[in-house]
């Protein structure tokens, strides 16, 4: 028997696998019992009502997708009255993802959705679609720190910060979020990307740029999760391209305490329960009794021993 539970700050999750924001909705409950999940992370909301980007919003890439959704939102009231009660029927903590236009609004929205049933709030400071050229709070350490401070001042719920990968120095932003009072980091949101149909000469998504998600970019996001985990004491939740138990384990070895799965659920809606089973099987095979013990156990090559060796 493997102990699958993991701790994210004060929160204990039954297992380390949860949805990535924006990739789960009621519909997934038609496919499997969402109580199986470590947590349910909901689609980012803003308090203002938004329609999101014009279609086409999705293009298929090789081993990846390009999504440009924007943040369609029905506001905080709808979230409190409909979204939370819906997911409360499941036996998994609800993590509410939020975004806002200003630092103050981040705090105000956090307060508004701190209702029973919500276990933690995830700050989406990194959505690449919201601002021109992909600029976002998450690209600036100071802004990130202030967002978290504004939120922790407004609610007693734990604040997770989902970092933007479109930065030069992810460690600096990770530390800023930790200093701001974050309980955990999600590393990371989607890399900003684009694709052009060379026959029509038009961008493949109407909004020109979007986030590239799926397995293709996993090695880049994994590197960032590692760098963030090295930089902070708080737990890191890996996210980006995870589509198998092997991928999830790779993130945990690199330092992640848990993982979020996004696009893979579109390709195979049952993937999250399968990943949970697969991690358990790996632990059994490797004699690991607590899944939490995997975190950060990558074994680096010994640089000196290697220095002039040529072994395969």
């Amino acid at each position: 028997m493997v102990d699958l539970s993991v701790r994210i700050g004060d929160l204990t999750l039954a297992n380390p696998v949860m949805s990535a924001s924006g990739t789960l909705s009621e519909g997934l409950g038609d496919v499997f019992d969402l109580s199986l999940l470590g947590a349910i992370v909901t689609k980012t909301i803003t308090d203002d009502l938004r329609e999101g980007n014009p279609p086409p919003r999705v293009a298929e890439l090789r081993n990846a997708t390009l999504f440009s959704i924007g943040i369609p939102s029905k506001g905080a009231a709808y979230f409190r009255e409909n979204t939370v009660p819906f997911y409360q029927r499941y036996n998994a903590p609800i993590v509410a993802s939020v975004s806002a236009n200003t630092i103050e609004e981040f705090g105000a929205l956090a307060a508004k959705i701190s209702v029973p049933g919500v276990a933690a709030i995830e700050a989406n400071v990194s959505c690449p679609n919201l601002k021109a050229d992909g600029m976002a709070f998450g690209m600036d350490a100071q802004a990130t720190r202030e967002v978290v401070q504004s939120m922790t001042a407004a609610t007693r719920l734990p604040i997770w910060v989902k970092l933007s990968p479109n930065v030069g120095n992810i460690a600096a932003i990770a530390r800023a979020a930790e200093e701001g009072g974050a309980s955990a980091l999600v590393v990371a949101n989607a890399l900003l990307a684009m694709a052009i149909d060379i026959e029509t000469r038009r961008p493949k998504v109407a909004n020109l740029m979007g986030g590239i998600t799926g397995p293709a970019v996993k090695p880049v996001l994994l590197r960032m999760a590692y760098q963030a985990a090295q930089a902070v004491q708080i737990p890191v939740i890996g996210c980006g391209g995870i589509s198998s138990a092997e991928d999830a384990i790779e993130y945990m070895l690199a330092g992640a305490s848990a993982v979020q799965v996004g696009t893979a659920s579109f390709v195979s809606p049952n993937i999250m329960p399968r990943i949970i089973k697969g991690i358990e099987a790996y632990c059994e095979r490797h004699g690991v009794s607590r899944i939490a013990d995997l975190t950060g156990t990558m074994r680096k090559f010994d640089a000196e021993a290697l220095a002039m060796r040529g072994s395969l």
Partner: protein
Amino acid sequence: MQMMKDRMEGVPACTFPVVEAPYPVISNDWVNGEYKLLVVEAEAAGLAARAGQFFHLACPPEGENDNFLRRPMSIHRIDRERGQLHFLYKVQGNGTRALATLQPGDTLDALGPVGQGFSLPAATQHVLMVGRGVGLATLAPLAQMAIAQGAKVTAVLSARSQALVMGRQVLEEAGASVHVVTDDNSDSDVVSLEGFIRRLHAASPVDFMATCGSNRLLMLLQKLSEEFGAAGQVALEQRMGCALGMCIACVRAFRKEPGAEALTYRRVCWEGPVFDMRETVAW
């Protein structure tokens, strides 16, 4: 029937209406130069599909194309007697080209049934369905349903040429009266069609209209359904990520209320693919 019963007994209590499962391929043959008909063996969950719903099909990887996303495909026929589902699809891009390689004995990885199908008011007397091209694939199960509900069905099939007319047999077997119009025959234009529908309505009032696959036809039926006071529904398409309402990629603009000016995005996979004509914006 016995076979059917056994199959259903083997299925676990169907608490989850949407299933991701391997469906054994029975046949996958060309029906004309552009379309193939894929017939698969289905379990209870798949056979519970309703007219207008669809499946999200995984297309096998082919060479450089991994066909990463699934492809939405309407159910062309739900054959509960034989325990089969039919898909009628146009071979056009990487995904459908890969689908076309499936052979009897292979399995189709399908997710479904998903989406909101047609809903026919109980008292419906006469259903008119007008479909063009691949739109026909989607409308056939509605004929089956309408006739089972006691309504009369007139199906107008529009195509470039007689050779490209499909689904006639399925419709006639279901009990619909079928009227074929073609570009070659110069009776598929909007004016001719409008004349035909007006005459039909005069002879036997139409109280429900359905269409799929043509903007031109949608606009015609929007006008006539309003004039006749008939209900009307349309099945729409959009590029999809998940087909489960999760990614919000498959939106189109709709009127907030039937007839309203204000628009809002709705998900084709979740609020549709079948929508009230009065809230649909022609494109």
